[in-house]
């Protein structure tokens, strides 16, 4: 089987890894969802960052940049010995957009967490995954005290393409978070079988 990296890297088969991204605005419940449904692990990443407010046009190398570490949400669900699902929370701030492309590469799909009190915070994630063509579902996290909306109301407010699942959830509940992931996987399967119908042969 051809692999992208084949320089004598014939490693014994490890488990198949499936990557799912958990996106959404700050405080929408990404961390809570990952923690409720998976074995969470601490993961730090870091990048050289430019200071957007100063020296915008004069940066010419890494030496002028600062480095920061970011704690990422990272969880794993061992489905079988040979099959593991990894959850990665996408960093919420725009200065970490560059990390999204890497996270999205090879991902099965994404969950966009939405908080109805701050629905606009989920727009960038929805836009990103739509543009990228990555299957995603919207999970409306039902916070205590927040007004409840129907999924269809949220769908209209987010101007979602028809067919994209919108589910209400309580990210603190394992079963609820699990159902969100199941919805995503089933949606991804549906998209795959649809595309096979449309492209014969």
């Amino acid at each position: 089987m051809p692999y992208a990296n084949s320089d004598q890297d014939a490693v014994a088969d490890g488990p198949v890894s499936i990557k799912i991204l958990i996106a959404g605005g700050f405080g929408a419940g990404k961390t809570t969802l990952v923690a409720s449904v998976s074995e969470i692990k601490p993961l730090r990443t870091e990048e050289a960052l430019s200071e957007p407010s100063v020296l915008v046009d004069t940066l010419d190398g890494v030496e002028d940049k600062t480095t920061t570490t970011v704690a990422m949400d990272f969880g794993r669900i061992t489905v079988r010995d040979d099959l593991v699902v990894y959850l990665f929370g996408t960093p919420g701030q725009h200065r970490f957009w560059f990390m999204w492309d890497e996270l999205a590469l090879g991902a099965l799909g994404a969950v966009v967490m939405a908080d109805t009190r701050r629905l606009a915070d989920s727009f960038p994630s929805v836009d990103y995954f739509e543009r990228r063509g990555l299957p995603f579902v919207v999970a409306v996290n039902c916070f205590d005290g927040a007004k409840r909306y129907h999924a269809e109301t949220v769908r209209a407010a987010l101007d979602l393409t028809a067919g994209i699942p919108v589910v209400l959830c309580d990210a603190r509940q394992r079963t609820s978070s699990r159902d969100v992931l199941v919805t995503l996987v089933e949606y991804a399967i549906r998209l795959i079988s649809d595309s096979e119908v449309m492209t014969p042969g």
Partner: protein
Amino acid sequence: MRGDQWLDRSAGPVVRPYALTGGRTRPTGETIDLLALVSSTGATVDELLLEPEYVAVIRQCRQPKPVADLASDLDLPLGVVRILLSDMREHGLVMIRQPARNRLTDPKLLKDVADALRKL
């Protein structure tokens, strides 16, 4: 405001890890995927001559292990681990296999995933 929520300070110092990489912030060669599988080659090495982090990677990767798991278990930032791994690959200490993307479109595999998740 929002910026204060990020864990820049509490996430710990980054100077020490980058001392480990000789100040480099980018690995050589192709990008190592977050879920690339790393395994020790079993090359004979004198562990006393290696950086302790190299030894830790070798020990952790006797069985193939994804990069993200490795970084988490070593408690090192991802970027640092990638640089370590690219160096170790050059020295024949580890093999790195990028994840097979094509498996993601296997409906049978995905049905297995959905079924397993339902049982959680």
